[in-house]
């Protein structure tokens, strides 16, 4: 892999950009692999990268039905934070945040991780209790965060409306300065490039349509382009996880729901942080290009449509206009939807299954983009060693039997 740098850019400019290397090969699949990863989203690609990089397992293929990073990775509002409530979740997301902090250098690919901070607003007394609780827990877990006043919020995001006369006035917020956003596509591409350089095959436009087993173990996957053998199959198919599990005769406690987002036209920089509000239900940041990136709450019913709808967007835009009355005259440029795999406790599943050699990493629901590096890291470890990574232990499938859920709904509430 030829390294990227300001110098390489200059050098290539002089040769009219005619000599750039491919970011990844588009190889024809081998007959079989040590590990096949189903799903070429950020998580699948990160898993491949760490399998190769950390565990030296390079005979790996990522099989993706569409284009790399084209699922939720392409569709999310790119919010990154680690201020989760429960120890198990906080530690996992914090591992991820630490990886984000060196990711551009690790991958030699600028994923534009921007630590502009994240505000989670509180609008009623219970919100504020929950914020206190979460921030206190974060602090004792070594995660940065503070509870801030409306005045401080106004300093951080000057266009916000902190009037006590609003319908749901802002009473305060949690503030995690190390949180922020990243350029979502670049994350997928950076991992793919890194994995490719280590020998991983990226197989695009190839859908896994069956999981072949022999005895109690997997032997490979059937795809739209034929069978590919594998000793281990690691499924990271996000919204399609249930469908993929069914191919192996398994059921998962996930339901696939549309989650919608929209962007405004690009405007001059006016919001230099991420603002999230669970109570009025909207979250917003401004991309490096200038568009306001706005996310909605998850749709109420199951769906694989990847389309947006109007009433959900109406509600979200109302929330944004409540928080930022000045944005009323800004305009929506585009809206879309993703398919998120929601778990009953709003926490992921990173787990072995009853089928030998078959692993699942799913259930990230509305908030898995931020976990991409950490998820790939612990999942690679789990697959390589055929046992849960210590940080993944709590996220096994068995928790639904024992009842040891990690309920991020209940208290943390905030989804993304």
């Amino acid at each position, binding site marked *: 892999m030829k390294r990227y740098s300001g110098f390489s850019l200059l050098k290539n400019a002089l040769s009219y950009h005619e000599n750039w290397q491919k970011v990844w090969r588009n190889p024809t699949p081998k007959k079989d692999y040590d590990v096949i990863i189903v799903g070429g989203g950020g998580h699948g690609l990160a898993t491949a990268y760490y399998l190769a990089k950390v565990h030296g397992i390079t005979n790996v293929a990522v099989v993706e039905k569409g284009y790399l990073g084209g699922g939720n990775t392409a569709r999310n509002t790119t919010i990154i934070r680690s201020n989760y409530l429960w120890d198990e979740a906080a530690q996992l997301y914090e591992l991820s945040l630490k990886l984000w902090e060196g990711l551009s250098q690790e991958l030699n690919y600028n994923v534009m991780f921007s630590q502009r901070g994240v505000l989670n607003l509180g609008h009623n007394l219970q919100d504020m209790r929950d914020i206190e609780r979460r921030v206190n827990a974060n602090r004792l877990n070594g995660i940065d965060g503070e509870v801030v006043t409306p005045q401080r919020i106004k300093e951080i995001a000057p266009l916000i409306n902190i009037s006590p006369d609003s319908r749901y006035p802002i009473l305060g917020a949690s503030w995690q300065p190390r949180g922020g956003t990243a350029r979502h596509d670049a994350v997928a591409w950076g991992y793919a490039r890194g994995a490719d350089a280590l020998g991983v095959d990226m197989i695009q436009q190839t859908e896994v349509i069956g999981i072949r087993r022999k005895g109690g173990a997997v032997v490979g996957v059937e795809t739209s382009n034929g069978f590919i053998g594998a000793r281990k199959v690691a499924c990271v198919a996000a919204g399609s996880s*249930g*469908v993929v599990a069914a191919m192996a005769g398994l059921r998962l*406690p996930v339901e696939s729901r549309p989650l919608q987002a929209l962007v405004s036209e690009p405007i001059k920089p006016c919001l230099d942080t991420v603002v999230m509000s669970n109570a009025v239900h909207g979250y917003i940041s401004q991309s490096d290009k200038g568009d306001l990136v706005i996310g909605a709450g998850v749709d109420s019913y199951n*769906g694989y449509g990847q389309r947006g709808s109007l009433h959900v967007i109406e509600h979200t835009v109302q929330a944004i206009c409540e928080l930022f009355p000045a944005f009323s005259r800004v305009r929506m440029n585009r809206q879309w939807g993703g398919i998120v795999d929601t778990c*009953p406790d709003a926490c992921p599943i990173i787990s072995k299954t009853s089928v030998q050699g078959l692993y699942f990493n799913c259930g990230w629901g509305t908030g898995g983009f931020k976990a991409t590096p950490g998820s790939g890291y612990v999942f690679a470890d789990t697959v390589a060693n055929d046992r849960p990574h210590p940080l993944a232990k709590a996220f096994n499938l068995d928790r639904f039997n024992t009842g040891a859920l990690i309920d991020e709904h209940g208290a943390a509430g905030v989804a993304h």
Partner: protein
Amino acid sequence: MLLIYCPHCLEHREEEEFSYGGEAHIARPLNPEALSDEQWADYLFFRKNPRGIHHEMWYHAIGCRRYFNATRNTVTYEILETYKVGTQPQITGADV
């Protein structure tokens, strides 16, 4: 936004009047105490979640306050039928 035919109101109504009730036809085990943790978890948390035909419950919350079932394609969102609780769907079928 869906337009849903309520089998009680005998009219199409806007989605805003309804709330989604999850997968239909899941019978509560008659004797929960006799189930293993796995069987109970299956009832509690595990759903079909198909890509395609789905039988699901809806509640006409801002209307006749009745629950009913719908057969909906989870990809196209087309609603193929709605039917009353206690009756069986006309349309079943393989996933698309």
